[in-house]
């Protein structure tokens, strides 16, 4: 199993990899929307407790690996001010079959939104 986690202030980039050993690759990209709480915005600012966020993401993925046995996981989360249209998070799971890959991506996002210490702290109005 391979787990790669990056919590960064830089724009996200998750280059394609050679996934020949896996039958399925599921990737979710979360993009900053132009509306937040019914207001038009130009950017969102995220804050994080970076070492704990990284560690907690690892723990969640390790737990999901025990349940679903995926081949690899790559997660990147961006902090700082992110312009509308740019990625705040990318999650990529590879596995033998598509069901596990889809399930792990979905369950990971659910658990991230409960336990990973990252916050949207400010919306920059348009």
């Amino acid at each position, binding site marked *: 199993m391979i787990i790669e986690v990056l919590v960064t202030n830089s724009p996200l980039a998750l280059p394609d990899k050679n996934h020949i050993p896996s039958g399925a690759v599921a990737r979710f990209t979360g993009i900053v929307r132009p509306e937040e709480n019914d207001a038009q915005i130009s950017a969102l600012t995220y*804050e994080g407790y970076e070492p*704990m966020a990284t560690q907690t993401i690892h723990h969640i993925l390790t737990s999901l690996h025990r349940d679903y046995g995926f081949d690899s996981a790559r997660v990147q*989360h961006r902090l700082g001010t992110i312009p509308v249209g740019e990625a*705040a998070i990318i999650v990529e799971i590879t596995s033998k079959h598509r069901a596990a890959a889809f399930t792990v991506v979905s369950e990971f*996002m659910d658990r*991230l*939104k409960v336990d990973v*210490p990252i916050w*949207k702290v400010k919306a920059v109005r348009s």
Partner: protein
Amino acid sequence: MTILYFAQAADAAGCATEEWPVTLPLSVDEFWQEAIRRHPGLAALRPHCRIASDCQYLTEGQQIAPDGEAAILPPVSGG
């Protein structure tokens, strides 16, 4: 003890970090009492926040070492 405040907790405390000169471990309840004594605005956040020490979430019965790091974590909203 190094204290870290995040998001709404940092707003309520008026700072992101501070040092407490404690020499004995603090229970989670004692930690909250001290935090609210220093920053009364945190009282309203207490029911919604979790405490972490050295990057691990704590439960009520656990303690924080005097030379450790403790963080007040409001409900998260990543992704």
